[in-house]
């Protein structure tokens, strides 16, 4: 990792963390969505540095382009300006409990990574093989996708079709109760 790579990487890490924290803490759902878009762009930069250019492009196209536009569409469509939310917490100390659980979770995850040898240096040599060079090649990814992973790829199309039908059925206005709303 040379100096420029390191600079870009840690700037992207900072942006990703800022976007995630902003997403949780913003009061307005529109602001949450915009923070999340910043987070997705930062992750796309990290994917690019981890030699996955196809996934970096797809991250921007699919997440920032399609999914977040869908989110913003729903927010703009249904949330009235100045709408007051009166949320009732069924657990009175819910935020506190959530904070404690999340703290425990992050400690467990990072400790697991640490004791699992993420920062151990000795494995570095073993994997610096010939395969490293064509990891960033879209052609290789396409060949892998359409040979070894052909069945999951085709099943993905089935999943998307099912989700499309499900979304249409769920969001359709009920014909029998037209006069209600």
């Amino acid at each position: 990792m040379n100096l420029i790579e390191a600079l870009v990487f840690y700037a992207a890490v900072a942006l990703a963390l800022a976007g995630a924290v902003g997403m949780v803490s913003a009061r307005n759902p529109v602001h949450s969505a915009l923070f999340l878009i910043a987070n997705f762009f930062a992750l796309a930069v990290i994917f690019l540095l981890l030699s996955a250019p196809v996934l970096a492009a797809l991250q921007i196209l699919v997440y920032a382009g399609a999914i977040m536009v869908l989110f913003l569409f729903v927010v703009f469509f249904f949330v009235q300006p100045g709408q007051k939310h009166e949320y009732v917490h069924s657990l009175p100390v819910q935020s506190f409990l959530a904070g404690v659980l999340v703290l425990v979770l992050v400690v467990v995850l990072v400790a697991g990574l640490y004791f699992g040898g993420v920062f151990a240096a000795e494995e570095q040599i073993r994997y610096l093989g010939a395969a490293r060079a064509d990891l960033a090649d879209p052609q290789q990814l396409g060949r892998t996708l359409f040979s070894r992973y052909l069945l999951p790829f085709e099943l993905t199309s089935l999943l998307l079709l099912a989700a499309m039908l499900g979304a249409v059925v769920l969001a359709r206005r009920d014909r029998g109760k037209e006069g209600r709303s």
Partner: protein
Amino acid sequence: MELMVSHSLVLSAVLFTIGVLAVLARRNPLVMFMGIELMLNAANLAFIAFARHLGELDGQVYALVFMAVAAAEVAVGLAIIVSVYRYRRDVDVDAVSQLRG
């Protein structure tokens, strides 16, 4: 392990935790949904980091399939949120207790 890979894995863990926090602490279903997206993205980051570490493309293929799953999940989830909004005008996830099977 390469420093960038291990730091990516730590970032992935932290982002996943922030997604969990969004689901647990926020009561707006849209923001909770964004938390789920964040968790899926954190898993994607871990897959891609391991693909880089092992020098194999398999992790990238998994990440690709994950993105399709996330898109499908968003389509269905937002359709549910839209129908609840249409019915109640405001959404509090604790108040939606009529969805019982």
